[in-house]
């Protein structure tokens, strides 16, 4: 074989993997840009790279140095926590009812959970804004922190239901039968067998909820009034130039999330390994 043939063979063996790695690089390119521009010593707006004085660490040393940025980050985190907690509890209950029980209207229940996911965010945001402004103001609810929370619980709910449902459906029913054969009553079967088996699905659902809530812009923009979340802060400051502190915080969230995912996977694989 000539070198050319060898090369061609090497490439054709790995062509799928090469494309895959290229696509992954494409996914990371804007993240790299965000990272790089957090070191930019820009004058007016952080769009073009200023070679004078760059790279600089000054934005990393003072991440809250722009008015409102850390407040909006705090709001995003608080909204994310409350919405995740509520959506995970409500959604898990719904998933158990839909998978484990036969009742009238189960089809309608599944439909009610599915349609919000098939509705574009802008329609959800618009409809929530109309009812908040035209109906809920009469009972004293103003647009702000709590309307964001109410809206986020709603759109996270469906994603929790489908995630937990998938986990429940893939459970081996023999495990619960075995518990019953061993004279466990319904309550201890549930808490000692079913629930621990479903828990990874519930944890995934909660993580998914938090990330959906944390990164949501469109619905939040409709229902937030004067309250600002981190994505809204970034979007609003776009017109007068996004401060590099936003890049610092955005990239830090990325690093924290990756670390959490890696730790989660390591713990997960350790738990699995003794049994397999």
């Amino acid at each position, binding site marked *: 074989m000539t070198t050319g043939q060898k090369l061609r063979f090497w490439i054709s063996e790995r062509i799928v993997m090469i494309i895959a790695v290229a696509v992954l690089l494409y996914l990371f390119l804007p993240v790299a840009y965000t990272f790089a521009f957090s070191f930019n010593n820009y004058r007016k707006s952080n769009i073009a790279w200023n070679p004078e004085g760059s790279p600089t660490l000054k934005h990393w040393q003072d991440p809250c140095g722009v008015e409102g940025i850390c407040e909006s980050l705090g709001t995003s985190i608080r909204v994310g926590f409350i919405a995740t907690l509520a959506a995970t509890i409500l959604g898990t*209950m719904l998933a158990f009812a839909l998978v484990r029980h036969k009742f009238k209207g189960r089809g309608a229940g599944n439909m009610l959970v599915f349609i919000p996911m098939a509705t574009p965010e802008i329609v959800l945001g618009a409809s929530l804004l109309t009812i908040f402004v035209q109906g809920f103001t009469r009972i004293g609810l103003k647009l702000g922190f709590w309307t964001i929370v109410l809206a986020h619980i709603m759109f996270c709910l469906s994603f929790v239901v489908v995630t937990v449902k998938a986990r429940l459906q893939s459970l081996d029913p023999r495990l619960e039968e075995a518990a019953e054969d061993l004279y466990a009553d319904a309550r201890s079967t549930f808490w000692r067998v079913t629930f621990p088996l479903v828990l990874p699905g519930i944890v995934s659902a909660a993580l998914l909820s938090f990330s959906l809530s944390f*990164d949501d812009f*469109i619905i939040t923009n409709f229902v937030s009034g004067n309250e600002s979340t981190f994505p809204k802060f970034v979007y609003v400051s776009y017109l007068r130039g996004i401060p590099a502190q936003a890049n610092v915080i955005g990239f830090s969230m990325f690093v924290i999330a990756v670390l959490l995912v890696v730790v989660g996977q390591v713990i997960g694989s350790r738990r699995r390994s003794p049994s397999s």
Partner: protein
Amino acid sequence: MTALAHIGSTGAGAQTPGGPAPEPTKKGGITAYLLLLPGVLWLLVFFVAPMAQLAAVSLQSQFPGYPGYYYRDVNFGSYVTAMTEYLPQFGRSLLFAGSATLLAFVLAYPLAYAMAFKAGKWRGLMMICVIAPFFTSFILRTIAWRQILADEGPVVGALKWLHVMPSSGRITETGFAVVAGLTYNFLPFMVLPIYASLERADPKIIEAGGDLYANGLTTFRRVTLPMSMPGVLAGTLLTFIPAAGDYVNAELLGSDSTKMVGNVIESQFFKVLGGFPVAAALSFTLMAVILALVFVYVRRYGTEELL
């Protein structure tokens, strides 16, 4: 599996590997309704009621001579306005979202395939790589694309240097940039469901295709692709629906001539006095079109016999 991977397994209508999910055995009774009550109530108050309110708003009529003041009515005038004045934006939304979905599919399939069959021990790392960019705010990433595709940016520079693009050419503020942004933003939603359904497929079945003297392309078309169809179906929906309603990409990467229906809804709501009814009518039309497309699409491709 991590959080977003579950979108895949769930969107694809995850089932137990051995066959369809077991039917519920427990009878209804009070427990079922108690479990259902809070969640269903929530969806009724914060999804169904707002939609009903939005429908009512879309049918309102204006008090003559008082812009911004409306009374309850059954007037389809706003729908007529929506469909006559904003037809270009509507068509553009469907065209852009459709193109982005197709591009995302072309990019996502090799990646999902490599993760399912070629990655081996790198599978977990690749999964993290697909999900991780999600956590940098998507608005920051979209603005990064604006920088990458800017007139002085590396992409335009390279294309001009290669003389592929005339020296006056640009990418930002064109439909191409908007489609590129949409493709990028929703790509993981395409990768994860396809990966989830390929991962469940038995590689031996694909090998069997080769054993039966099918060439690579035929094996792919007759064996691999049909097996991954639930994932492709879920992925296209998870990409197309948010892309069709998006306005952030068109706002940040496009210009006035690339506005999508989302931009119209947003500006009718926030910037036009008395724009609520038209915005509501546009929202409903968008949702009706999407639901109709989803329905036809699922009916057409949601079956076992695809090819």
